[in-house]
């Protein structure tokens, strides 16, 4: 593993120390769970946005004393960390921001409210409607004033534009790294790819992160060591988000001889083409437009996800697709029908998996994954 890649594995640890120091100096921390949360607003408020999305099995048993067993593990894990106070990032958060994405999260946030202040944004789900964008713009304005009040700051347009530029740059830099995998052989395997795209959400310093991303991109672009990745079936992962801790499907694919070249989920490419339009007059509108475009399955209809997938299949020279649905995630589960048809129409093998964070189904997942890889000509 290259030294820069290694730096990404330690982002979480390093940033924890920095966050603690920043808190001691009076800086605020805002916890976020989802890609719909406009982190630019938090940055513009002078606070640190941190990702809290649960990716570990450990706190699920505790979560199940309150939440139903038959619920998405991501929601249970997120709540479990909160209720057991075992996630330092949650611990340091002064405020949590949630969105009405799926039913499970929305209702979980109500209960989480008992542990910490959770501010929930109303995310409209019919995104092609004018009224939806209008509502979302209003919601962003409401967030702005709430943050100003809660954190006792003023969020100027100037600060917003500044934050918007930073996040635009970061997104472009991450995309440039992911795009290196369009090459054959790909430069990064799925686990390394995830290490970069997931760990960056824990960085407390956007400038430093931007430098790291660029350095890594340059190093990888000239790297000749990707021979180990040659001739392996190129697999695209889509569906629910994964992170380190819930990466078992990536691991199984790579242990079985395949290689995850790209991820069209929130841990990967889903948001990487989206940029806020800096030519507009109002930064709130620029943000609203960008975030409304995110192709999450909670949107109906969700055409951009299929456009994006179709393009990724070509550009990343994909040989097979794994579509992962976490248990009880209805929106991704149902959308899998359309994803499956799209992939099969391209003549590519498609595997839909339903799983949770436990290791109880490793064997049954493995045989399916091996059979998928056998289907690659």
């Amino acid at each position: 593993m290259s030294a820069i890649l290694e730096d990404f594995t330690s982002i979480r640890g390093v940033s924890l120390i920095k966050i603690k120091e920043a808190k001691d100096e009076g800086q605020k921390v805002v916890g976020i769970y989802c890609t719909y949360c406009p982190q630019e607003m938090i940055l513009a408020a002078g606070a640190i946005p941190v990702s809290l999305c649960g990716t570990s099995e450990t706190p699920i048993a505790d979560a199940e004393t309150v939440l139903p067993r038959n619920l998405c593990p991501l929601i249970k894990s997120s709540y479990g960390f909160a209720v057991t106070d075992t996630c330092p990032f949650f611990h340091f958060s002064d405020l949590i921001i949630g969105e009405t994405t799926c039913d499970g999260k929305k209702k979980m946030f109500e209960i989480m409210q008992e542990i910490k202040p959770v501010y929930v944004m109303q995310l409209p789900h019919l995104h092609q409607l004018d009224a939806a964008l209008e509502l979302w713009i209003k919601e962003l304005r409401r967030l702005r004033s709430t943050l100003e009040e809660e954190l006792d700051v003023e969020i100027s347009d100037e600060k917003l534009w500044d934050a918007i530029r930073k996040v635009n740059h970061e997104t472009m830099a991450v995309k440039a790294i992911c795009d290196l995998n369009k090459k054959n052989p790909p430069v990064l395997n799925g686990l390394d790819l995830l290490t970069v795209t997931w760990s960056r959400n824990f960085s407390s310093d956007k400038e430093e992160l931007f430098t790291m991303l660029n350095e890594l991109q340059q190093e990888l672009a000239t790297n000749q060591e990707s021979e180990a990745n040659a001739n392996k079936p190129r697999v695209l992962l889509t569906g629910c988000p994964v992170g380190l801790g819930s990466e078992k499907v990536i691991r199984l694919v790579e242990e079985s001889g395949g290689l995850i070249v790209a991820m069209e989920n929130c841990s990967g490419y889903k948001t990487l083409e989206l940029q806020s339009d800096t030519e507009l007059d109002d930064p709130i509108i620029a943000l609203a437009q960008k975030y409304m475009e995110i192709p999450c399955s909670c949107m109906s209809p969700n055409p951009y996800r299929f456009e994006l997938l179709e393009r990724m299949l070509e550009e990343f020279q994909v040989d097979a697709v794994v579509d992962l649905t976490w248990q009880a995630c209805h929106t991704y589960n149902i959308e899998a029908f359309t994803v499956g048809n799209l992939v099969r129409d391209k003549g590519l093998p498609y595997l839909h998996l339903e799983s949770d964070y436990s290791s109880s189904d490793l064997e049954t997942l493995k045989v399916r994954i091996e059979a998928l890889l056998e289907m690659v000509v």
Partner: protein
Amino acid sequence: MLVVGLDIGSVAAKGIMLDRGKMHRAMIPTGWSPRDASEELINKLLKISGCKREQLDDIIVTGYGRIAVAGAGQVATEIKCHARAVAELYPQVRTIVDIGGQDSKVIRVNGEGRVIDFAMNDKCAAGTGRFLQIMANALGLDVSELGENENFSEMVSINSMCTVFAESEIIGLLARGTSKAGIIAGLHQSVGRRVAAMVRRIGIDGEIAFTGGVAKNPGVHRALEEELGCQLLIPEGCQFTGALGAALLGQNS
């Protein structure tokens, strides 16, 4: 060319040896150790054929024990092996239904015998040999006796999909004096319905083959044909299909 195909299943371990034109087969209970089972099978096949271990050109292993035995030879999934065997036995077949001890699967193949899609039952036992085994126990029968004991004209429908609930459902039915033969018919129908739903999800195209140990049960055979509305081709020695496919893959490589 002398090759062995092993299918180390959850209940039974099956082996096929292809010795030029000849075929030998053997079956033993898997027991606790897939590794021991595979050794025993190989020795059995060598004995039947009168060949020596050194003469073996290749061993291909499939089935749930395939990983534990890895090292003995190459590994392939049951899905690929079934497709390979059926392409040999019935080239006209495009859909394969396999019901084994632990799982059931539906495989779509193209004209060259390549897998183009597949589905497997999820974590639960409904629609597998395991389901039938538990129900047979509750009825005081051996699973192999279910087929001959069914009476279709007395069929009562079993509504529970879940193994645990289905078990208490039939205990309740027995207590109310419902005929065993009718309950058995209902159980077969329930397996048939469950598996037929999986077949329709994958799509039917061309003829259908039915493989795996459960294909020997005439009741499930009947129920599945009824649910699908078409006839099924069942190979002789249906529980050896996976092992045969493994051996054929070995022959090709």
